[in-house]
């Protein structure tokens, strides 16, 4: 894909922001194309056009289900990860209102979960935000201790989007099951990257997003275990088992399905390849640049995920320099978020503000090669030393 491409200045281009979004794969685009104009029917229509579209949506549903060990009827298509998180959390909270008013989540969730929980607090629910250790890892024991008679939902992410740590969702699933509490997992970053089995992991609700796995943007899914009830958040027609009204995004859903099929097929090999590249990048940076620290767990982390803090310098200034060298990355610095605070995730892990501001996230993907990694490792040291020479600190 992008690995060997060069822009007009002759600078190598290396996209290292696959946790933000991924390109749509050619196979996925090919699968989608017929459903824009040729087979444009509404899946709810009974005629031929409708039936064609319906068949495509159901075929995609089976592929999405297969990636996570679910049954096709347990997949509800949404407009993306954010909507699926909202449906899972608000849908459970309002459905179970008479049974209790307490939710458990963590301090390192994505804003799609955190801001939804905060909204529910304003609406009268109580929310426990669990702490994490220095790696951003949640302790399942803390989950168990937080459960009360009022607890109706535990929502914990699988792969942490900023630091890459893989949370112990299987252990938490056992606890949730033992206590009869509904368990939601935001798997936007892990789906298609590492194995997920909703039965084995005792997951009741699971969020996925297509654009993080080489599918199109604006499509996602919520897995809803058979028998789990939710209050719909968008009301209208009886689409998606009455849980999500609105005519289906047929081309998007088809693309998402194909992306899931390919991810499942390629996962064993691709996750190994990415892990090797990841460790080459981490090792290369930590070895060649002093005063750098890896954020997130050193081994229990997503195969494509690198997050490193550079002491004494600030993230945005690193990103701007990388961008000029053709490298796209992201940062947890306040100066890149437009807010006054650096990443809530890095702060929850106990990182001092300086280190949180100096964090750079590099997330690998299909298009990246070993040469890309070596290019990044060669480009970073002079950038870092130039900025450090300029810095107030050290």
């Amino acid at each position, binding site marked *: 894909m992008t690995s060997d491409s060069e822009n007009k200045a002759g600078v190598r281009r290396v996209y290292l922001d696959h946790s933000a979004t991924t390109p749509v794969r050619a196979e996925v685009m090919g699968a989608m194309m017929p459903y824009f104009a040729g087979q444009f029917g509404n899946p709810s229509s009974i005629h031929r056009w409708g039936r064609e579209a319906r068949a495509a949506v159901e075929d995609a549903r089976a592929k999405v289900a297969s990636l996570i060990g679910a049954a096709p009827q347990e997949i509800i298509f949404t407009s993306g990860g954010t909507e699926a998180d909202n449906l899972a959390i608000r849908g459970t909270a309002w459905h179970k209102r008479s049974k209790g008013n307490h939710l458990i989540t963590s301090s390192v969730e994505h804003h799609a979960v955190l801001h939804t929980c905060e909204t529910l607090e304003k609406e009268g629910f109580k929310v426990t935000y669990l702490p994490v250790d220095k790696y951003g890892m949640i302790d399942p024991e803390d989950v168990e201790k937080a459960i009360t008679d009022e607890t109706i939902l535990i929502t914990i992410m699988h792969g942490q989007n900023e630091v890459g740590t893989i949370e112990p969702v299987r252990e938490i699933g056992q606890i949730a099951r033992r206590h009869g509490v509904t368990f939601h997992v935001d798997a936007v970053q892990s789906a298609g990257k590492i194995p997920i089995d909703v039965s084995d992991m005792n997951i009741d609700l699971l969020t996925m997003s297509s654009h993080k796995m080489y599918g199109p943007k604006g499509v996602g899914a919520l897995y809803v275990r058979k028998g789990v009830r939710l209050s719909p958040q968008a009301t209208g027609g009886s689409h998606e088992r009455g849980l999500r009204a609105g005519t289906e995004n047929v081309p998007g859903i088809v693309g998402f399905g194909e992306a899931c099929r390919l991810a499942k097929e390629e996962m064993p090999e691709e996750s190994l390849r990415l892990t090797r590249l990841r460790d080459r990048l981490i090792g290369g940076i930590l070895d060649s640049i002093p005063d750098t620290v890896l954020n997130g767990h050193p081994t229990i982390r997503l195969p494509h995920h690198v997050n490193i803090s550079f002491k004494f310098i600030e993230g945005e*200034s690193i990103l701007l320099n990388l961008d000029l060298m053709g490298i796209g990355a992201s940062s947890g610095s306040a*100066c890149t978020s437009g807010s006054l605070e*650096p990443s809530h995730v890095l702060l929850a892990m106990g990182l001092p503000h300086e280190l949180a501001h100096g964090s750079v996230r590099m997330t690998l993907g299909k298009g990246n090669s070993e040469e890309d990694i070596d290019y990044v490792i060669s480009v970073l040291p002079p950038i870092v030393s130039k900025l450090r020479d300029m810095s107030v600190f050290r």
Partner: protein
Amino acid sequence: MYNDKVMDHFMNPRNVGEIQDADGAGQVGNPVCGDVMRITIRVEDGKIADIKFRTFGCGAAIATSSMVTELVKGLTLDEAMEVSNKAVAEALGGLPAQKMHCSNLAADALHKAIEDYRAKHPANSGA
């Protein structure tokens, strides 16, 4: 996000460093918000004979620091005191709105350096 002038000052910052035995030094910001700027000056005949900066911060923080040093070198202390953060941003051809507050404090650092000089040299602080 940034215009060419800002990027020029960010990539090729003017007057980076720390003046040894400076006549005045000023530092603003703190690591919590992500931008810290330090300016040191040498004063001769009531004028800023030399000025250097060190900055921990984003592109805007570095570019404004660089620009303020360029703007005030050679000015009298009174003239330099008149240079505002807003004037620095204007000299750079503007900054993104979200950068106007905590990343645009270079003039404050300069003013602190001048005040530091005046506190240490009460006799010739009129200038």
